[in-house]
């Protein structure tokens, strides 16, 4: 996703897909399938009655209700807290990993390392979730320590590859001449990193961080298994409502979070564009 945004120099391949017959129709169809349900969800968040299917009148009632709902507030706060911390930790680790895998001479096990970093993308999420649940449960019983730290650790783990990909793509795009020039001028390695490499890779880091934030904000399965008492995130809160009937309150909350996602994705896009 971010790679597309930050990598405009796609190799030209003889034919241009955009001028193939049916391209426009297929593209619009795919967009409609992807976005129509979201549009319906947003529209009904402004519906005045309780049903999520019958339209009566425009109103902000459900937003007011969601705003005053303690459960929603608490869950949203937990979600933001976890997403922010997971973003912070995973981005730091992903940045270090990206530097090692692009800025050091090739070493034995380089490909293996990359595979291990990207592992959370390859393993089905529910497997990771169950494994994490059992692993944490053993630790909790052995140490008697509980807390939201476990949830943040789990989120950090699966956010790393998402943060890693755009950062690595950015590093691979940057050629070494500026860093070599700095080194030629007797800048010590750390200074080269601070004054040259880091500022240049910043767009990649920001894109990676935002991606990690969104992925953490979204997660259901791992969170469902790992979250302890009082650690219900917003997606879990919504899931818990389903059996007893979803109200447009959920539409309202989802719309707000959709808004946050859209803002962040726009930022990622703009950062990608800036560097051209």
């Amino acid at each position: 996703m971010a790679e597309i945004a930050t990598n405009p120099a796609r190799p030209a391949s003889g034919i241009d897909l955009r001028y193939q017959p049916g391209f426009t129709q297929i593209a619009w169809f795919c967009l409609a399938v992807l976005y129509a349900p979201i549009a319906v969800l947003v529209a009904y968040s402004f519906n005045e009655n309780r049903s999520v299917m019958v339209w009566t009148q425009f109103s902000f009632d459900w937003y007011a209700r969601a705003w005053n709902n303690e459960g929603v507030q608490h869950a949203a706060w937990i979600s933001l807290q976890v997403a922010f911390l997971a973003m912070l930790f995973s981005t730091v680790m992903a940045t270090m990993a990206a530097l090692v895998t692009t800025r050091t001479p090739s070493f034995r096990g380089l490909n293996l390392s990359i595979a291990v970093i990207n592992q959370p993308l390859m393993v089905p999420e529910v497997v990771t979730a169950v494994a994490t649940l059992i692993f944490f449960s053993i630790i909790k019983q052995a140490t008697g320590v509980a807390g939201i730290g476990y949830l943040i650790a789990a989120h950090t783990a699966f956010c790393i590859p998402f943060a890693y990909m755009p950062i690595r793509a950015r590093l691979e795009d940057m050629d070494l001449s500026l860093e070599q020039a700095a080194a030629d001028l007797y800048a010590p390695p750390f200074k080269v990193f601070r004054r040259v490499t880091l500022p240049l890779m910043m767009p990649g880091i920001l894109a990676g961080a935002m991606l990690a934030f969104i992925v953490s904000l979204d997660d259901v399965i791992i969170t469902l298994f790992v979250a302890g008492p009082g650690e219900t995130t917003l997606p879990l809160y919504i899931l818990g409502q389903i059996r007893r009937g979803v109200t447009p309150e959920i539409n309202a909350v989802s719309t707000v979070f959709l808004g946050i996602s859209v803002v962040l994705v726009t930022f990622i896009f703009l950062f990608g564009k800036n560097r051209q």
Partner: protein
Amino acid sequence: MKLKLLKRILAAGLMLTAGSAFAAGELHIYNWGNYTNPEMIAKFEKANDVKVTLDGYDSNETMLAKVEQGGSGYDIVVPGDYMIAIMIKKGLLEKVQPNKMSNFKNVDSKWVDVYWDPGREYSIPYQWGTTNFTVDTSVYKGDINTLALLFDPPAELKGRINMLKDMNDVINAGLRYLDYPRCNSDKAQLKSLNEMLVKAKVNWRTMDYSVIEKLTSKDVDLSQSWNGAAKRARKDRPELVYAYPREGFTGWMDNVAVLKGAPNLENAKKFINFMMTPEAAAMTSNFANYANGITGSESMMNEDLVSAPEIVMPASAPAPEFVPPCPQEVTDLYAKIWTNLNK
């Protein structure tokens, strides 16, 4: 030594991020989502100086998966009847003996010797209800108290029916309609059940949990339904009437229980005793819209609840049947029928 140090570092690290509690004690409740009255929780917190955390789950199975390994940190869970039986068997519940507590006298005697917890050694009633169906009586004017409406519907209701997407609810209704016993492994009977369901399905419009939406949007005129959902749907569509078929129907009960190894055992026991007071039971019913099994709570319940035919069963209706979990071989056979039906 080393391990101890590691433990301390871990503890310090995690404590930093853990929410701090100012009350004297804590209690961690894990209940179905949107099923706990916040006022009732506030009352308990105030009376006992306890800070309560509340989390929601979407199914008995989710809850089981999460607490089965131990160390989940929860004290109180609210499993359905069959899940209590499973959890007692697996040794996941603490034998807190509510039957020896001071408020146990309030528990309606018909809910004491139940198949999932005979004599109430582990759990107390939380909410109970029935699974039947609700019909728009302006569309169909005949007698509604028969399962024929689901399986051999009159012309008005053909193609206007929603069934719950729940294997046990559909199959048990089918077995009752054919007058076969529950937890059935008789191949010949199951074969005719299968044929009957496949034939009936032609007249069903949907199989879906979202009963209220289906009914209020007039997508269907009859839906299999939990009684609470039927009551809520009636608010928007007053012609709906909840049926009590004479062939019989399923009852269900959610129960408050304490997890083995609960970190706050004493507070959990206090909560169990508190939940047997008519005030707490009434508050729960007023929020969750179901009956509660605690005598003396009716006078504090909302008028529309006490007078609702979905909640208060008419005297003519048969007693609800609580179906224990069936043996694995039966469940496997059911699953085959169910998969075939969903094709």
